[in-house]
Structures are given as structure tokens and as C-alpha cells.
């Protein structure tokens, strides 16, 4: 009896201590400081709105540069010298790699831009062009996705400053989404403003992609000569990834890649000056560097008067009902003003509105096919390294009925053993869990 009482007392004591211990386990003991964690609630104010705008700008700039590199890889602008960029062989990895379409960065730019626009409207409405700029970026992301990726794609709405439901959009719907964003931008900016011009060129580009020729030519009007918009690059936080890879001897400008590629090197075109850096890091072929990208801070042009002119020139092609030689005149106006400079015994055409000296006047090839070839060659050289070439190659197939085998690199792969693959677009990654999205059904151009 005594032993039983003793045991009961002991159990009671231990149970009490255990209870205390249990309470201790769930108490404040487990709370810790989280100095490097910012809550979404922390940015619902003017400072947060402007910081999110800055974040969107950075994401957009880096995404644009990477998009320019990778679309050029899958296209014919750039060649791999590292032995690691599968897209160069037209073999897009099934899973994300570093050298991939920057779907995440551009999407980050888009949803943060739209969220920032929403917060700016609420907490920091002036200057209003900040808001317009954000909508413009969102529109451009839609265009780059439509040009670089297969179809359809998921696109998130941004409601009350936060990403919300996802819509599944075809390429044409994606381009319409871009136009909606451009409309939103226009509502916050005065005509003639730099952002307004950015929106105009973007709208023209979206309409051109959509095959809306008249709409495109309308939108491309009124762009001031010499206009060029680049997101900010400082070479540290936003940097030119093309320069970094070329200078590391991992990437080169292509020349006649896979037979169909343009002669970006051998043409010795004054619009695309080239420096030979020697052999590649892994692939023992020459590395040709585009001198326009001379540092990590070299900007990537997003929109320009040159592009607007090129859009107009395309719409003015006779096969689109353009009058006479208007298309050619538009192209030549970019190349030269028709006068010459004399240096010793040499003469050189003075620059046209494209501001590059030494470009001769073009002549009409005389056929629709020849004109298209010439026009797209002009686009390729004027817009080299701006992330437009893959979209152009797709349009050559889609809108001008060129066979893929006549547009994309093919045959033996120049970067190693094997042959070029058959991919013509990138695929989005990280969408396995997206409700209602079962991947691309159209991986063609």
C-alpha cells in the first residue's frame, strides 16, 4: 500500500512535469527572428510599389538579354562554343536548363510589372508614365512569349496586386493580351512620350505577328527618327548575357549556320561589326563577337524607329498590297541618304535614318520571294541580337510559307558530332502543376 501510494505520487509528479514540458514545446520557444524575410504585406505602400517597379525593370532587362541570346541560339544568330547549349542544335531540353528560354524571368517581369502598376495606381500614381511603363513591359513579355514559345501558354491575371487565376491562351490570344496591356499603358501616358512610343512599336510588333498588316503599319507611324528604347543595364545587376558568354568564349556569332543561316560574319556588314576572339572554350571553332555588345552594360534594344520602319516596309511589300517600291524605299531610307563620303580613293554611302555608314542602296529582287528574303535579311542585320530573329524565322514559315528546312539550320551540326534536331520553338517549363494546362499542343512555327 505504501509502495502504491509512493508510486502514485511519483507518477503524478512526473505527469505534471511532462505537461509543463509539453506546453513549453509549443510555446514561444520556437519563434525565431527572420531578418531576411520580407512579407508580401510589407510592400503594400508607396515605397513597396516603387520597389516592385524596380524589381520588374530588372527582371525584364535580364530576361530580355537572355531571350535575345537563346532565341538567337535556336535560330541562326548565335552558335554554341561551350558544348552545353542544346538549343543550338535545335534540340530543346525537355527540362529546364540554365541555357533555356528565360520563361521565368520574363514571367516574373510580367506579373511584378502588373502588380507594381496596380500598387502604383493606389499608392504612388505620379509620375503616371511609371504605370504605363509597367503595362508596356507586360505587353512586351506577352509578345516575346508568343514569338519564342509553343502554344498555348498559361497566363496569370494579376488582381489587387497579386497573381491570381491562370488563363490558357493560344498564340493569337497572347498577342491580343499584349494589345490589352498596351491599351492600359496608353491610358497612363501622353502621346509623344517615350513610353507612348515604346507602346506604339510594341503594338505594331504584336499586330505584325498576328498578320494584321494594316494595324501594324498604323501603329508604327509617328515614331521619331533615332528613337531607341532599352531597359536599363548597369553591367552588374542587369547585364548583357550575350557579352558575358561571348567573352567567356562559350558563344559565338554564327555564320551560315546549318546551311540556311545568314552570313552574319562573312557578310562583313557594317551594321554587325565582328571581332574574332580565337577558339571557343570547349568547341574548337572560332568565336566571333558582335562589337555592338562590348561590355556587360551594353544595352539590348527593345524597340526602335528602325524596327518601326522595318515593320512598315514589310507591310508595304507588294504582296501585301503596298504601292510600288515604297517597301524598298523604306528599307533604303534606313540604310543611306544616298550621298557618299570620300576617304582617299574609297567612297562610302553616308548613313540613312538607321545611322550606319557604308550601306549601299538595295535593289528590288523582282519577285515576292526575293523581296521577302531581302526584307528579312534586313531585319536580321538591323535587329541582330535583339531577340527578334526566331520570331522572324517562325513568321517566314508561318506567314510566308517557307519550308522549315529552308529557314532553320539543318544537316550536320557544326558544334560537334550529330545533326541538327527538329525543334523550332521553346517550351515553357514549370507548368506541370498548372490547373487546366496540359502543355503545348502546337510546337510548330
Amino acid at each position, binding site marked *: 500500500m505504501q509502495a502504491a501510494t509512493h508510486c502514485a505520487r511519483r507518477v503524478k509528479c512526473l505527469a505534471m512535469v511532462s505537461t509543463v514540458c509539453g506546453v513549453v514545446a509549443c510555446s514561444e520557444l520556437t519563434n525565431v527572428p527572420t531578418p531576411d524575410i520580407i512579407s508580401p504585406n510589407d510592400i503594400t505602400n508607396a515605397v513597396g510599389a516603387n520597389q516592385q517597379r524596380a524589381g520588374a525593370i530588372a527582371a525584364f532587362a535580364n530576361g530580355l538579354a537572355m531571350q535575345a541570346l537563346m532565341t538567337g541560339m535556336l535560330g541562326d544568330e548565335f552558335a554554341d562554343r561551350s558544348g552545353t547549349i542544346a538549343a543550338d542544335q535545335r534540340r530543346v531540353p525537355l527540362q529546364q536548363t540554365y541555357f533555356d528560354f528565360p520563361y521565368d524571368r520574363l514571367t516574373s517581369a510580367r506579373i511584378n510589372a502588373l502588380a507594381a502598376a496596380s500598387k502604383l495606381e493606389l499608392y504612388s500614381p505620379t509620375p503616371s508614365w511609371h504605370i504605363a511603363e509597367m503595362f508596356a513591359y507586360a505587353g512586351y513579355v506577352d509578345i516575346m512569349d508568343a514569338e519564342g514559345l509553343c502554344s498555348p501558354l498559361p497566363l496569370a491575371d494579376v488582381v489587387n496586386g497579386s497573381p491570381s487565376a491562370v488563363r490558357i491562351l493560344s498564340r493569337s490570344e497572347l498577342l491580343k493580351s499584349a494589345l490589352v496591356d498596351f491599351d492600359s499603358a496608353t491610358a497612363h501616358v501622353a502621346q509623344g512620350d517615350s513610353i507612348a512610343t515604346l507602346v506604339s512599336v510594341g503594338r505594331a510588333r504584336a499586330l505584325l505577328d498576328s498578320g494584321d498588316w494594316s494595324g501594324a503599319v498604323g501603329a508604327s507611324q509617328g515614331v521619331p527618327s533615332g528613337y531607341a528604347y532599352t531597359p536599363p543595364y548597369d553591367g552588374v545587376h542587369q547585364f548583357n548575357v550575350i557579352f558575358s558568354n561571348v567573352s567567356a568564349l562559350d558563344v559565338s556569332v554564327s555564320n551560315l549556320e546549318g546551311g540556311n543561316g545568314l552570313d552574319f560574319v562573312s557578310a562583313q556588314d557594317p551594321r554587325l561589326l565582328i571581332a574574332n576572339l580565337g577558339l*571557343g572554350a570547349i568547341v574548337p571553332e572560332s568565336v566571333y563577337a558582335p562589337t555592338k555588345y562590348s561590355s556587360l552594360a551594353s544595352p539590348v534594344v527593345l524597340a526602335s524607329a528602325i524596327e518601326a520602319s522595318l515593320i512598315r516596309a514589310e507591310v508595304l511589300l507588294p504582296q501585301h498590297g503596298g504601292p510600288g517600291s515604297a517597301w524598298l524605299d523604306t528599307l533604303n531610307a534606313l540604310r543611306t541618304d544616298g550621298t557618299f563620303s570620300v576617304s582617299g580613293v574609297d567612297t562610302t554611302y553616308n548613313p540613312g535614318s538607321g545611322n550606319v555608314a557604308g550601306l549601299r542602296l538595295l535593289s528590288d529582287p523582282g519577285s515576292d520571294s526575293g523581296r521577302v528574303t531581302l526584307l528579312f535579311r534586313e531585319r536580321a542585320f538591323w535587329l541582330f541580337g535583339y531577340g527578334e530573329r526566331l520570331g522572324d524565322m517562325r513568321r517566314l514559315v508561318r506567314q510566308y510559307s517557307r519550308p522549315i528546312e529552308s529557314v532553320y539550320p539543318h544537316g550536320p551540326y557544326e558544334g560537334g558530332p550529330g*545533326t541538327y534536331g527538329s525543334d523550332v520553338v521553346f517550351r515553357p517549363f514549370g507548368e506541370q*502543376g498548372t490547373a487546366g494546362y496540359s502543355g503545348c499542343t502546337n510546337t510548330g512555327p
Partner: protein
Amino acid sequence: MNLHFGPCRRFALGGMGAGIAFCFIAPTGRLVAQTTAPLMQLADRGPAFYQASGGRAVTVDVRAITFLQAILAVDLSDTPLADAIDSIASRARVRIIYNSADVPTGRRVTLSASRITLAAALRVLLDDTALDVHIASEGTLSLTRRSVDSVGRTAHVVAVVQGVVTDASTHAPLAQAVVRVEGKGQQSITGQDGSYRIAGLTPGTYALSARRLGYTPLRRTIVLGSDSVYRLDLPLIASPAMLDQVVTTVTGDRSVQELGHMPGIIKVDSVVQTAPVTNLTDIITARVPGVQVNLSSGGLTGASPPITIRGENSLSLSNEPLIYVDGIRQDNSTVGDFQGLSAIGESSGRFNDIVPEDIESIEIVKGPSASALYGTDAANGIIAIRTKRGVAGARRFSVFAEQGLLVLNKSEFPYSYTGWGRLLDGSNATTDQCTLVAVAARACVQDSITHFSPFRDPATTPITNGERGDYGLQLSGGTDTRYFVSGTYQYETGVLKLPTADMRLYAPIVGATGFGNDALHPNALSKYSVRDNVITNVGSIGDVSLLGSYLSSDTRIPLSYGLAGGFWGPGYRDSVNDGWAYGARPAEVFVPRHDEAVQRFDGSVNSNWHPTTWFSGRGIVGVEFSSNSLNALGLPDEAAPGDPGYRVNARTNTTMYTVDLGASAEATPLRFLKARTSIGVQYNRTNELYTGAGANNLTAGCQTVACGTFQNSAESSVESVVAGSYGEEAVSIGDWLFLTGAIRVDGATAFGSEFATAYYPKASASWVISQAPFWPHQNFISLVRLRSAWGESGVQPPAAAGIATINAGPVYADGALTTGVTFGLPGNPALKPERQREFEAGADVSLASSRIDFGFTYYSKRSSDALVSVVLPVSQTGVSTAQLRNVGAIANWGYEGNVSLQIIKSASTSFSVNVNGSINHNQLLTLGSYGAPNYGSYGTPGVVRGFPIFSWFSLPISNVRDANGNGIIEPGEFTQATTYRYVGPSYPQSQFTTTPVLSVLKGTLSLSASFDYRGAFVLENQELGEACALGHCLAAVDRRSSFASQASAVAIQGNQTLSYAGYFQDGSFTKLRELALTYRVPTSWARVFKSRSASVTLSARNVATWTRYTGADPEESSVLGNSSTGPFFDYGALPPPQYWILRFNLGM
């Protein structure tokens, strides 16, 4: 004859003399003696019969003791009393134990009776001897001496028991053995001379136990009668079966036989002296079934491989066990990525920081059934390290010196091949790209094939013989306050060197300063460590220990691509690349500096408190701090002409706090039943602070981040806490059935806001059948035990994974630097720990006096709420990220066993063989609603329901046929499946180790070996795949290659990311892991040098390998990160080298 004895009463003696009874009461917990005998003269003449009950001695009614009523025929005439007692014992077939000093030597007795009971016979013989009879057990009696106090009463006052604990076979004294009075608070720890002394015992019957790691505990019953000094020497028998050893658990020290699970125990102090052990990993490797080092530490000095216990449990979290040193949780992080510059295959890490020579033992708790009380984080098992402690006695020195050679067999490295020929494009030019595909396409005509490996050529090889040194001094001694101090220095130069050809090429680049030692030995390690502890007794009720250690190490870690290029070089040596792949020669990574500097400190206070016989308390408070600094510096033009240079400096400071408080209370409510109740609280806090800075494009002449034009920096602070409490009830029935039930309650920082508390229950049973009353006593089967355990434990999610975050950092906008923010991780407020539930059951049997021991365990565990990294829609988050969700389930089940055979056991020679092994099966049960299979990719195993996690899958190649009969497989002459097929697991599923040990000349000379087999897994021979992708493997250029290998080469040339099906190989292997010859200098010789012991060991590690794997070595694995999930492939990693070590041990 009518005898009657009863407690506290005086009884009639029936003419056979007077008796006395004792009654012990314990009003204050201390025993006192009280006599009930009013007539001392009568009372003291005859013996009393009494026995122990509940820790007290009570007189008994001898009529109730059957064996005392045995009828004897006695015929003793003038016989010495001792002989008479022995005669009586013999006739009655009982054991009678007595101290011969207590028996009057001159006394002679006479007794003749045809029918007399044993009790009566003893009464006659012991009349007037002042000896009493204690009934120790059925059939065993002890004679104890009575004394008379100052007032003439019979009094039992304090006695002392003392003796020496020795090794039963060598008779050497054993230090640090614990001699304990069972059921009491008293205990003594032996000093260097093996002596112990326990005082303050009142008369009675006691069970004394002696325990020491590595020996079978010895239990002796002793009957103490008066204030005498009793001597009881305790010879311990070495226990290969480990079953009787004592291990440390959360609730205190326990005998293994009380546990329902079988822990792995490694006696490190003996292993390090006689085995080729270079670091802690070597100690763990192939010594405990179910514990797998994945794989070895590879060839890189300073590498720290992952360890898994009983399979892979988690898809998203580390599968590493927790590491405790003397009860303090330790940083076991692994640095797999050198700040974006991946190191050569293996990872550096903290596990091998711990110096083996400082360790006394390692106990491995394998799974949730055993680790439940360790709580959240413990599901992957526990590696509990107990360091050496101060030993009582005179000051003793132990000195060791070890010198070693590291050898890597260059012929293990595969060749690259090149097909030479003439182009058929009209130029007729010579080409080194004349592959079979090119030949078939009529692009060239092949005229020769060359092969070359830069690893094998003396001028181009980066492989050399490395050196190793390890020196240490240990000091211990003291009395009531004991101390231990250890200091070691270790260095290793690794097997890498700057190749001769590279030195010639890079001499102009490095200029007049020449190559530094860093470049010449690009993988070198130096390590200093100090460890000490002081233990002092606090009266007789406890002890307090202060423990501390400090370590400083510096390791050079070359980057990966410096060696990878040697596996798929061009297949010939030219003057530009010297046989290395273009742009990937060793100097490019050997000349720039990459090193890891580590500083570690730990300190703790450890106390034990036992104020009463039934209550004890424990307390550990400690902190472990580690600082890891990664430094990288490549000067402009140093790695290669035109290289802009780079600088990285990143520091991670990790502080881990441990508070562990516990208490236990024991009770014996019934004579055959003992109960022990334990409670405790544990608090573990981890603070990891990271700061890093880096820059590219360094200004010439400057070596700091500030000089770079492309600077970046980062800082993070991650803090996590697990706080929990537990209660355990352990019951033992008759020392043969042990039942335990427990529960732990945890809260943790990383739980989501919607999840508060985790509960982890456990239960276990151990049934030592051979100790049960019904077990027939016989000699052959010395032990049979059945055991079973069930329990749950967890692994907590990464800190802050439940919290939604915003990313922030500097950006450039509006012409200035500013802060930019973007959406980060969405967080998961429902996040909770992964939960593992395990059941295990097994048996242990010991036969023929422990010459045959074997154990078997079956286990089955299931990870539920497994964290699955669910890829979040990029379209919604804007980041390529995943959210951890508790939706998965993984099963592991398998078998473990060990057999120990003492084949020869004689006075001078012994030969034993120990075999242990394990087989693990793993299966992914579900990924929840996120059921998309992940088939992995080139170099990354997949995760598919129904298969082992982290398995290889491929698109197999089939229908290979040479359609055009040209002897070359071309594109189109085989098909590649479009659906994935399971290939095999990426980590070994089975493991067996055989260890024969031969000892001759009375242990003076011993020879041991260890054969380590790993099987049932698949390796991706990526080095071969890369070579084939570049057209530089044999199958790509030689038409004599099999069609299957040609098809694989063609496929991988077509699409490297998809067509790696042909490069999976059986990774099974057997290694002669250890070989050691030890000579122990005879004690007499050692004394010449004023030493008490001396030995010399010549040993070798990784002596030979048998495998079908065609790469350099199946353990040439590239393991990234601290996850033991791999991937396992051989991308530029080094095979583990051979170690040849000569070691001297000296004890003074």
C-alpha cells in the same frame, strides 16, 4: 527437528541452538539494522538464515525453502570446517559461497547423521562461528560474518567492496569500467589500474554489475555481513556480439538487451589503433549493417560523403542522420557547391572534422523505432559519438604517430579514342573526326585509331602519390576530478599534382613568382584539433563534466572541370591540349586558389545527479560553433590567357545550441517487477549565418572583391528551433522481459502556421528468453533474445519554408542603384514534418560460449507526409520554384544481419570471422495528387511511383541491326523507345562486409581484413557517355565494337539529353576495403622504454576492387549537395585512392 524463523521475532530452536532474526526498515531511505535478540549469548551462537527482498535483508522460515529441507546423510569426523561446508554443499548439490578469511581456520567439526536437513546441518556446523547464512538464490548460499557492536548487540555496519576489473582473457586491467550496486545509487568507475571501491554498504545481499563497452557485463551476487573490506575481482569477457554492452539513450545509459532495437556500436578506440582509418567516414564505412556511406569519400582529400541509414526516406529533405557528440548536436552540413563553382565531384563537409582518435565509441540509432525520443529531425537516425573521458589514476600519456602513402592506380583511368582519316570532300585533308558515323556517311575514310588518357601519361597526368601524417598526444588522469586532454595534427597532400606538361605551359603565365605550393598540391589538407574534458564528483550524489574542443582545418579544393576533360579528351596528345579536352586542362583549376577554411568549437556542461536510490537526473547544456570560409581567387590571365579573373569569399557561421534535461525514477512495486519512469525536455536551436561576396573581372594586381567589375554579395540568416519534451516508462520483469513505451511532443520553427505540435510515440519489447525462469540451463545456447520496436519520428521542413516571401536586392533603375523587389516563394502554411513510422523485429542468439553469435533484424518503415517538391506554376509565381507539400509516401523495408564466428580460440591463437549485411527495398508509394512521374534526366535520377526513389529511367535502344551490312550502326539502324523504362536504383540496395581476424602469439600479432560488397544498383557512366557524345569513345570509332555499343554512341551523338540509355552499368563491386597487420610489443619490452604498452600497425585501405563497372572505379561518384540522394555518376570525380599506413601507438 522443528525450526521456525520469522521476521523480528525470536524463535525456538528445537535444541539445535539459538537463532537471531533481523528486521530492516527504511524510514529515511537509508537502511539501518535492528536486532530483536534479547539474549545475545544464545542468539549469537547459531547462524541466521535470511535473504534479500526489495533491497532489504529479511530472515526466512527455512521450512519454506525447499532446498534447505533436502535430507542428507552426513558423516564428518574431525573435519576442518571449510572442508565440512564443502562436503555438505556437495552432498546437497548447492553452492555455498564464503570468504575463507571468515571461516575459523583451526576449527574442526564432527557431525554424523543419516537423515538431516541441509538447514540443520548448517546450523550445527556454523554454531558459534558468528556466520550467518544468506540465501542468494535457488541453490546458492552465502556465508557472511556477523559483528557485535559496542554495547554487545549484533550490528551490521558499513562495509566496503573493492577489487579490480580485468580483461578475462588477457588479465589486463580495464579502465573506465562502471561497477554498480544494482538498485542502489552507489557506483565506481575503474581507474587505469582497473581498481574500484564502493563503500558505505550495509550488510545484505547485493548484486554488483561491471560494465564496459566491448565486454559482456558481469553480474555477481555478494553478501556483505559487517564492516569488513570485501574483495571482489571482476574479470570481463570481450563481447563480439555487443548485445550486453551499454549504450547511451535519451533517457540514460541502457544495456543493449533492454532495448527493443539493435543499435550499431563501433568501438572506435580500438579500431583506430589497428585499422587503416583516415577519418570518421572510414570508421563508419562497412562496419554496421544498414548504415551506408554513399559511396566512399572518393578520391578527394577533405571530401565528406553522405550517409544513409536503412535507405532513402525523403524526396526533398536531407537523408542524413543527426550527429551528436557527447550529447551535443553537431553541424553535419555538406558544401557541395563551391559558391557556384562546383568542386571536383565530391563535396566537402563537416562530418570528417571530428578526429577519430578522440572518440571512444560510436552508437548508431537506425530509425524512428529507436530515435523517437530524439524527436523532429531524428527520423533518419542518430550517430551518437562518445569521446574519451578522463580516467582515474596516475597521469597517463598516449602517443600515436602515423605516416601514410596515398596511391591511385593510373591504369584505372579509361582511354579516349580518335578515328583518323582523310576527308572525302575533295580536299583529301587529314581529319581527327573520322567517326564511324562519318565513315558510313562517306565523309571520310578511316585509316587509324589512336587512344590516349592524360591520366596515364607521365608528362600529362595530374595523379601522383600523396602523403599523409597524423600525430597525436593524449593525457589523462586524476582522482575525484579526472581530466582528459588530446591534441592532434593531421595533414594529407592528396593524389593530385600539377602535371609536368602544365607546369611547362603555365610557367610564362605565372611569371617569375613561379608556382606556389597550392598549385603544386591542389588538394591538400591540414588540420589541428584539441579536445579536453574534466569530470569531477559532487560528493557521492553526482558528477559534473566540462567538455570542449577546438578544430582548425584548411583544405584545398580544386574545381571539377580540371579533371573531367581527361575522360573525354581527343584520344591523342598534341602540343596544345596535351590530351585533355579542349579548354579543360588541370592547370586551369589548379593554378587558381580554392580552399575551405574551417574553425570549430564546442563546449558543454554535462551533469548527473542521483540524490536518492530511486531518482536520478541528467543535464546537458552545450553549444557547437563552426565557421566555414570558402575562398576562391583566380587572377586575371591565370586560369587561361584572357581569363578576367575572379574572387569569391563566402563564410557560413553555424551555431547549434543543445539543452537536454532529463530525470528518471525507479521503483520495484513487485519483487519481480522493476519500473523506470523518465521525463525530459530538449531544446535545439540552430543559427546559420551566411555572408558571401564575389566579383569577376579583377583589376590587375588586386585580389579582393572590391577590385572586380561584376560584384555581387549575399547574406542570409536562417534560424530554427525544435523544442520538445518526452516521457518514457520502462518496465523489466525478472531481468528477462523488458517493455518500454514513450512519447515525445515537439514544436518547431519550420512547421507551418496551421500546424502546431507533433507527437511521436514509441514502444518496444526485448525478451531475453535464455534468462527466463523456464529456460533450461545448458551450456551450448548461452543467449536467445527476441526483440521488437515500433516508433515514429520526423524530419522538419527547411526553415521558413512555410512563409510567403518577397525577394529583394539591388537593381539598376532610373539611372541609379535602388532596391527592387519581386514575388518570392508563396509559402505553405500547412507545412508539417515528414513523419516516419517504423517497425522492426529481430533475434539475437549466442552459442557455444559466444563463439557463435548471430543477429537478424527485419524492419519496415513508411514515410508519410513526405515533402514533395511540387513545381509551382511559373506563370503564377514568376520564379522557377517549387513548394514543399506533405503529400508523398515512401516505403523502406529490409533485412539486416550479422554472424560472428570464433573459429579458433586457444591460449595463443584465435581466428574469427564476422559477417554483416543488409538488404534494403525502397518504393515510392505516392506523390499525392501531384502524380506526374519524373523520369530524371542525364545525370539526374527520376522519381516515379512504384519504383525506388532516385532511380534511373531511360528510353531504351532496341532493334539494333546493320541493315546495309557495312559493319557500322548508323542513325536509322536502331530504334529508341519513346516511353521510359526502369533501369535500376542509383544507390546500393545490398551491402555485405566480411571481416576475418587472425591473432597469434597470444595476441601479439594480429592480421585482419575487411571485404566490402555493395550491390543491386546502377551507375551512370557519364564519362563514357560524354566521350561517345564527342566521338571519342571506342564504340564511336572502332567498327569492331559491338553493335549495341555503336548504337549507344550514335544515339548520344544525336541527342545527349535524351539518349543516355546505353551508359547505365551495373555498379556492384567488392573491395578489399581494409587490410591490417598489428604487432603488440610485449609488456616486458615496452617497460624497457618506460611504457606500459606499445604497438605498431601496417595497414592498407582500398587495396583491391572487383567489379563489372567499366569506369575508373564504381566509387568514383559525383555526389552533389548534402543529400544522400545522389545523383551518382562519375562526372570528373576521382576514384578513392589506396592508403598505405604505418602507425605507432605508445602508452606511458
